């Protein structure tokens, strides 16, 4: 049976933050190893899907790492303009994670 859950139900932490003046990095951290492995296998978070969710050209994705010690999936994008330039709506890059809360994961076992 197909069954889907939102990332916000599965992850302990979903956050975004500046990584220097020109990048924003996203951390999706899971409490249990099993959940982390399941999300990795599901294909819900890949280089392609995160670029699609954020509507950014894949060339702007500089890093995509599955980080086993922290049960975390982490990716980083180049900003459109450096943090704090006039017109930047998020100097700290701290509110860019929200679209990932609703990403659906196939949890069919």
């Amino acid at each position: 049976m197909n069954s889907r859950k939102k990332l916000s139900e599965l992850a302990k932490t979903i956050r975004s933050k500046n990584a220097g003046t020109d990048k924003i990095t996203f951390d999706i951290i899971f409490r249990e190893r099993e959940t982390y492995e399941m999300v990795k296998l599901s294909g819900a978070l890949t280089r392609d899907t995160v670029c699609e969710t954020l509507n950014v050209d894949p060339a702007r994705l500089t890093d995509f790492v599955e980080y086993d010690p922290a049960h975390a999936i982490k990716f980083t994008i180049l900003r459109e303009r450096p943090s704090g330039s006039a017109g930047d709506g998020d100097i700290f890059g701290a509110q860019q994670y929200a679209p990932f809360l609703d990403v659906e994961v196939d949890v069919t076992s």
Partner: protein
Amino acid sequence: MSSLKIICPNGHLGFAPLKTGSFHLGVDSQPDFIAADSGSDDIGPVPLGSDTCASPKAWQRQDLEEMLLASRRIGVPMMIGSAGDTGSNSRVDMYVEMIREIAAQHGLAPFKLGWFYSEVDKETVRGKIRAGSEITGLDARPALTEEELDATDRIVAMAGVHPFLKLLEEGCDVIIGGRSSDSAIFAAAALHKGYPEAQSYYLGKVLECASFCAEPYGAKETVMGEITADHVEVTAMAPEQRCTVASVAGHAMYERSNPFHEFVAGGMLDMTDCHYEQVSDKTTRVTGMEFSAAPEFRVKLEGSGKVGERFVGMAGIRDPYTIANVDAVIDWARQQTIERFGPDGWELHYNVFGRNGIMGDMEPLKDQPGHELCVVVQGVAPTREMAEEVCMTGTRQMFYARLPEVKGTAGGVSFIFDEVLPGSPAYRWTLNHTMAVDDPLELFPTHTAMVEGAVQ
């Protein structure tokens, strides 16, 4: 010494005040050093460019006072990096002055104060460019050009451990640093006492943001790091917090593009093979870190340049037809500004909150605006007078936008005031680069003085 303990009470001293309860628990645990970083490039380019603080002086003073009094009472060194948010020379001087004032106010016994600067003269950088030593861009930036250098108001170099080590070797009890790698402040203390580089830099990496490496989430609480020749342990001091395998490993990737590598002046901390182990309820032990020296000594430079004076306006929209056509409203207001001031020499920026004010083009729901919007307007121009008028035009003309089918022809937007507000001047990050140097101390002149607290 088989182990060394450092406490860190605040991940960005001054940005919000430290929590005194867990700080005093940390002081009572007999640390060998008390250290904190006080700066960040998170705060945007305005403080560096305009040589101001992002934090209120009262908060900075509170934390410096707590740390200085504790450090003198238990007789251990206190170290601060990136003084006053940016680490510019004037912020270092301001912290040095605050330390002197606090010492005098409390009649502290004499102690040795050390400080170092990290501002880099533009002509030094120009000389490197002209001599063919590339100022290399980080994060996809091109190499620095002289034009971009000309557009820069202030540059700070990011110190590694070297000036801290020099001041510790000179016997300083209190050190105020210019712009510094967060981790270097703590690493320098451990290196000074003879611990290996890998463990020392990891100690710095895990302590730099204080309780961000603990759970549950709670900022500005003190954590303690303990280093031995082969491991680092980190312990939460706040009664409600723990340092867990998950919280400590998770912190390794905070604010960085890659969780495995931390670059500092002179080398790189490699966390790829780190192993995390819960050794008691509040303590996690980390082993397996590596450090490799860089083949060439390069220092990171941060630079900020002024774009113009700035005013800020705000307008609200409730009419659903106007909301659906908010871009046309903005275009109208922009067109009125062009008619008055010409096509260039000024900037207008619109953030449409309730639609995509925070995420811009990355917002997946930008086609589903809320039932009311707030438009924040920024006008930027060479003079304050012009910036005010540009912003006023760009804000007030939204009121008069000519949409073909609007019913409410008495006024197209709401105002909570019909003025525009003076903002900080607009700056932009001009440098996020690295520069080769011959001597690790070349850009970081150090100074020392005895502070005769009681007699001032």
